């Protein structure tokens, strides 16, 4: 029941088996991959099923990813995706909460890892359970896919918890800065507002609006079921067909947001005033959608700039005595998004000094190609990260879920492969193309009455 922290293609197309195999209502569309993942589509309703078998682990993880996130909201109903996610824990037709059959009752009380999260492009619900409870997971998740109980009473009861979560985000100055970066960089597109939404929209949420949202987006043909763990494929497909197969495909096409962000026409800037804590500086540039060919290059650029203590910005800012901390945040999203640098300043250091130093580092990238070994280092880090994501049920589900949300889960593995093809000139080209003043947003946290 969480909001992923505010705002987090390659050109080659995915290669699928040329002759799809069918098995009892499913068609297999597994792309070539080394992750050990198979993909099937339930022909009746278009539900996609990913499966990775981990024998003898004793546990099974199930995640349902709905391809709806806060970018599908507009002013007036911001935060709806997240509020709806909370209400999805209030029981469904065959698992009513008032009879002690809610998801929490069904699984958390059996020791399962149970939760859900909402972000810009997707909403997910998941359980990692001892394997004997896996069939029950399928039953509960399938039931709340189309039969959730969304009531006025539950909404009124749940809103204070949502507002508490809203306040939790506002308590963290770093998150407030991040949120303002997206507000400022995006004026029209749904990435403008944060996933938690505007407080006034949260407070005025209605059951009718949430029910409409649910009926619009919560359908098998707008969802992906991922199963990882100690359950063989035949068992998984059998249970998915039995429980999720009862739902028809949506009668309407799933709406796609049509609002395009107008071109930015120059640098944007804002200041947040605080009376304690640290001065901070954020710099953001617009970058293309996840499935754009430059994604692997931007991944390298992010790593080289701020991915480690040996990165260029760490060297220039932290070892250079200006900042206590610097990091780069680049997450490929479904639509064009932001490439972000965050720096925490040491006392008595001016924001302008840090900004100039960042500009100097970027200018260096524009004019001089990187040393090839820096690209090789990024490749080694990505390979290790991919191996790490294979360890643990939730770990794997959470990673693959973000790539599902970009529009193609195989992007995860492809990025790793394609990073190996990136050459220093690619990084130089992307620095020239994307890190421009015209596309830049600058955010500052200024501490006025600092005690230090």
């Amino acid at each position, binding site marked *: 029941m969480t909001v992923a922290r505010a705002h987090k293609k390659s050109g080659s197309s995915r290669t699928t088996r040329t002759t799809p195999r069918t098995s009892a209502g499913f068609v297999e569309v597994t792309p070539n991959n080394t992750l050990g993942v198979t993909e099937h589509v339930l022909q009746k309703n278009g539900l996609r099923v990913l499966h990775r078998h981990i024998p003898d682990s004793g546990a099974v993880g199930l995640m349902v990813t709905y391809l709806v996130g806060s970018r599908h909201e507009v002013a007036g109903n911001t935060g709806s995706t997240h509020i709806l996610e909370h209400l999805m824990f209030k029981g469904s037709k065959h698992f009513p909460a008032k009879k002690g059959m809610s998801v929490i009752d069904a699984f958390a009380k059996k020791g399962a890892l149970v939760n859900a999260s909402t972000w810009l492009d997707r909403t997910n619900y998941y359980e990692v359970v001892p394997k004997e409870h896996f069939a029950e997971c399928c039953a509960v998740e399938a039931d709340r896919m189309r039969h959730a109980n969304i009531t006025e009473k539950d909404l009124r009861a749940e809103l204070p918890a949502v507002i508490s979560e809203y306040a939790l985000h506002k308590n963290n100055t770093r998150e407030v800065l991040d949120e303002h970066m997206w507000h400022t960089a995006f004026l029209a597109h749904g990435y403008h507002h944060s996933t938690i939404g505007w407080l006034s929209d949260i407070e005025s949420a209605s059951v009718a609006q949430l029910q409409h949202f649910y009926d619009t987006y919560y359908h098998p043909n707008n969802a992906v079921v991922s199963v990882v763990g100690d359950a063989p494929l035949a068992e998984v497909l059998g249970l998915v067909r039995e429980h999720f197969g009862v739902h028809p495909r949506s009668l309407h096409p799933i709406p796609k947001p049509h609002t395009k962000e107008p071109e930015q026409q120059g640098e944007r800037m804002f200041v947040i005033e605080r009376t304690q804590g*640290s001065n901070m500086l954020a710099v953001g540039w617009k970058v293309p959608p996840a499935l754009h060919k430059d994604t692997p290059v931007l991944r390298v650029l992010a790593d080289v700039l701020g991915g480690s203590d*040996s990165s260029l910005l760490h060297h220039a800012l932290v070892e250079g005595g200006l900042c206590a901390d610097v990091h780069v945040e680049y997450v490929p999203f479904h639509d064009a998004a932001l490439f972000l640098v965050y720096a925490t300043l040491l006392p008595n250091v001016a924001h302008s000094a840090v900004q100039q130093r960042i500009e100097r580092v970027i200018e260096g990238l524009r004019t001089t190609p990187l040393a090839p070994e820096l690209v090789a280092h990024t490749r080694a880090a990505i390979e290790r990260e991919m191996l790490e994501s294979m360890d643990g049920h939730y770990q794997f589900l959470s990673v693959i879920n973000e790539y599902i949300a970009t529009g193609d889960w195989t992007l995860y593995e492809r990025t790793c492969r394609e990073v190996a093809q990136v050459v220093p000139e690619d990084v130089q080209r992307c620095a020239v193309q994307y890190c421009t003043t015209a596309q830049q947003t600058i955010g500052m946290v200024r501490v006025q009455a600092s005690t230090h």
Partner: protein
Amino acid sequence: MTHPTYTHTIETREPLSGTTLHMLPTTVRGLTYCSLALPHGAYHAQGVSAVADVCGLLLPECSSRGQSRSVLRAALRAAGAEVWAHMHGTHLAVHIVVPSKQVESVLRMVLRAVLTPTFSQREFREAQQRMGQYYAAEMEDNTRFHARRLWSEVWYGSAHPYALHTPEAYRNACVELVAKESKEWYTGTRTRAGVVAVCASDVPAKRVERVLAEAFETVAEGTREACVDVEDTRTPADATVVQTHHVPHKENVDVLIGAPLSLTRESDAYHALRAGVYILGGGAAGRLFHQLREKHNFTYGSYATLSGTDTPYPLALNATAIFPRAVYDRALPVFQEVMLCWAEKGITAHELAAYKTEALGRRVVSLSSTKALVDTVFAYATSGRDIAEIDTQPRIIEALTTKEVNAAIHTITPTHITAAAAGSFE
């Protein structure tokens, strides 16, 4: 019901006297997790922890004899290794995640850095600034930290390991540090006795063992410094007064309600107490979550834990919740009432039965990854417990009785349950 066992897959070796290597199989071919614990003397109070924190930040990627920091960093990056360190009780904990084919070379480089650091002035100053300025400022702005600090000040003097310093005191302590003295502290408190390594790898144990033996050969065996008794506890005149601290620009109030305990991790009643605390606030099935979230909708979440389980000192009960400022005045009495009711009346047989089901299921789920198993073995080994206990947990849980749990809860003095809150009060 049968419960999975784990320790039969662990191979335990002793590369040198005083050092222990626990080797686990990995479920991910080609990936190695390695966690090392290097003992550093006795427990120290948080109030004087600046030197340990700065050393923790400086390591493991620092210059050492014949190996500069930049060379080390480049070599680790080229190997695809991720390495980080922090102070963990009386140990410097160093964690490495690395492709298995690189594990021996990376382990050698990291051990050389942490065993023979040179602490150059520049590297030291950087770590000192980051801890003293950045982390102190972070603390200053953190309501959870202030609630914990206020609560600890009620019960513990500044020399106690559970005492928390003010951000200003911490900043000053960092500023006053000198590289030479810090290095003396680091090298002077280190001993080979009690070194623990936990590795999950597809590389044979004997190869990891050989690297450890080579690295620690020159380190004096020494003896572990005995844990000193800490008498620096306080008895407040009125523990029922709610302590508050104002932090500007906050929309939530962080609340900590807790009590100092007489039991330690080694007490016979520990497992019963742990069950009682879990029933109070261990998760979504706990009383606090049920009352504060589901019944009254005051908060996003509320939890209770035992702190001090990795030390030999008496434990502390800590329960936390974060309330929007607008409901704080109504929520606090309910929170206090739930705590008091639990301490005075204990738990029911029904709750204990539910706890057993949940705890046994959670064990299967939480130990289903290699990393989780490494972390668990590491926690057991660094606190001096027998790792065989990992497999005996289910028996212990199943044997618990309501009477035992309530007896453990009743070791808590209800008048010692104290509340502290931090948020925007002005």
